[in-house]
């Protein structure tokens, strides 16, 4: 059940749910960052160019709602999509430890890149960002594994 079309459906579904939770219901930080999870899952399935392109689109979607730091999310997600696609060449397999680490590090990198790109005036203190990012990373990793397990993109024992 891991055909490219199914992965695409899952990714699009995650994007829709992300905006439904964050924008529609206005849950904010309470809801996991499903957009990043979708990018990390999707980028593992495509090459470098498509991974970066996916990140570009996702970043533009988020930037459209943050007009005062336009471009920060776009660059962040593009780089993340690129790196996500790059891991395909470096790490093969879907073990639980790898996926948890991949999602955790991916979410942290997303927050760190965004912090760098957002500019000094809008930037939160570094320690605050690091603390929140670590918590958000764990949250994203758990949510990502649950999503992948529910959608059949990951099964226990799979390599």
């Amino acid at each position: 059940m891991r055909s490219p079309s199914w992965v695409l459906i899952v990714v699009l579904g995650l994007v829709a749910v992300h905006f439904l939770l964050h924008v529609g219901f206005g849950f904010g930080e309470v809801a996991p960052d499903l957009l990043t999870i979708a990018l990390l899952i999707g980028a593992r399935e495509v090459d470098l160019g498509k991974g970066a392109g996916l990140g570009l689109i996702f970043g533009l979607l988020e930037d459209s709602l943050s007009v005062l730091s336009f471009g920060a999310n776009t660059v962040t997600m593009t780089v993340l999509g690129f790196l996500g696609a790059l891991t395909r060449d470096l790490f093969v397999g879907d073990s639980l430890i790898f996926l948890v680490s991949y999602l955790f590090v991916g979410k942290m990198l997303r927050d760190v890149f965004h912090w760098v790109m957002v500019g000094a005036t809008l930037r939160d203190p570094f320690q605050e960002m690091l603390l929140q990012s670590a918590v958000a990373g764990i949250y994203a990793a758990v949510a990502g594994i649950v999503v992948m397990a529910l959608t059949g993109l990951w099964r226990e024992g799979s390599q």
Partner: protein
Amino acid sequence: MAQFGTDPAMGAGSTRRGPTIVAVVVLLVALSTTYLPDTAQSRIAFGIRWSLLRPFLAFQNQMTETQIAAQDVEELRAQLDSLSEATMTHAALADENRTLASLLELSDRLGDDYMPAVVLRPGTPGSESMFILYVGSDAGVHEGSPVVNRHGLVGLIREVRAETSVGMDWTHPDFRASAMTEDGSSYGVVENRRGAFREQDRLVLAGGAYHEDVADSTLVVTSGLGGVFPRGLPIGRIDGVAETEGQWSKTYWLRPFVQPPEVTHVLVAFSPDSTFDMALAFPPDSAASRQEILRREREDGIRLRALADTVRRMRVELGLPVSIPDSLRAIADSLGIPADSARLLADSLGVPVQAITGPALGGVFRNAIRSGARPIVTPPVRRPAAPTPRPSTTPPDTAPTRPPPDTVPNDTIAVAPAGAFR
């Protein structure tokens, strides 16, 4: 565990060159978005919001309206409960009336230059201090339009489209407002001061003269300088000196009246009259945060109940059975409160309309309300014998044998502060 190595399916380096070049191009495109002019960025953002994200924003709007409707139902239920309770405590109903009237009054005082709008917050990274309003240039909103609510200044509009606009509240680092103390003795710029955490963000009044001392709790309003905000919009109250710069400038902490997370409804200016002094719409004695208003209303309720108890005791002690509805009206007029409110108050005191007292009780009533002292809890002094009730033939508005107000012992009077019946 994950296997480390090259995916054999990927092939040789030549086949990876194409995607790598595409990735680099995409990365350059992404980087270029940060350097686009503001208008181009706004255009792209609006295009995406209008197309891909439109369903989600519409859904949020729907959710907000549903929440408001739910709140309305709760308010209606509360009003129903209040109505039931009003058979015993009409004063509380009158008090609630005043609160609702004050909301409507602000809109009336601001005139036709302001329109109501519901505040929507995206809740995504980078949008913490911004909000979206479903009013735009079609309705006359323009960039820089002030956004206010009944407590004072909320923020201003940063970007306007035909049907929507994006604003920022005072928690945004770019927020600045030229401000002054209420009496105009000290001027400065109000800005957001970032704390170690977002929860520690505070408003400050920067640039105050070193030789001037602005007392704590002094009201700070917009000065009207610079033409962005009209003069007289309440911002907050002074809460101590934050810092002094050399010997030429002081910065003060401010306690803001408006807490952005609590803001759901605002008024947006679409063609503000620059000469209009907002002090007329926001009288200094009405400037308060939501918490302060609730506390004040609670205290008013306690004082009203204390006054009711006192008058009830006085009525028992003085024996005042005279029926004088006209006197009630006269008392209400002299106190500057509507006659209907006085009737409600009389009912809440347990005094039958046909037994409302004349000048004697009126005087006590007036003194009690105007004296401004706090309720006295000392029990009433027991009198040897209660006065004989007056015969029912006594004409209204006359009570010659009744003791004058000054002879009523103070230890039986619980008094309300001046303004309790405003």
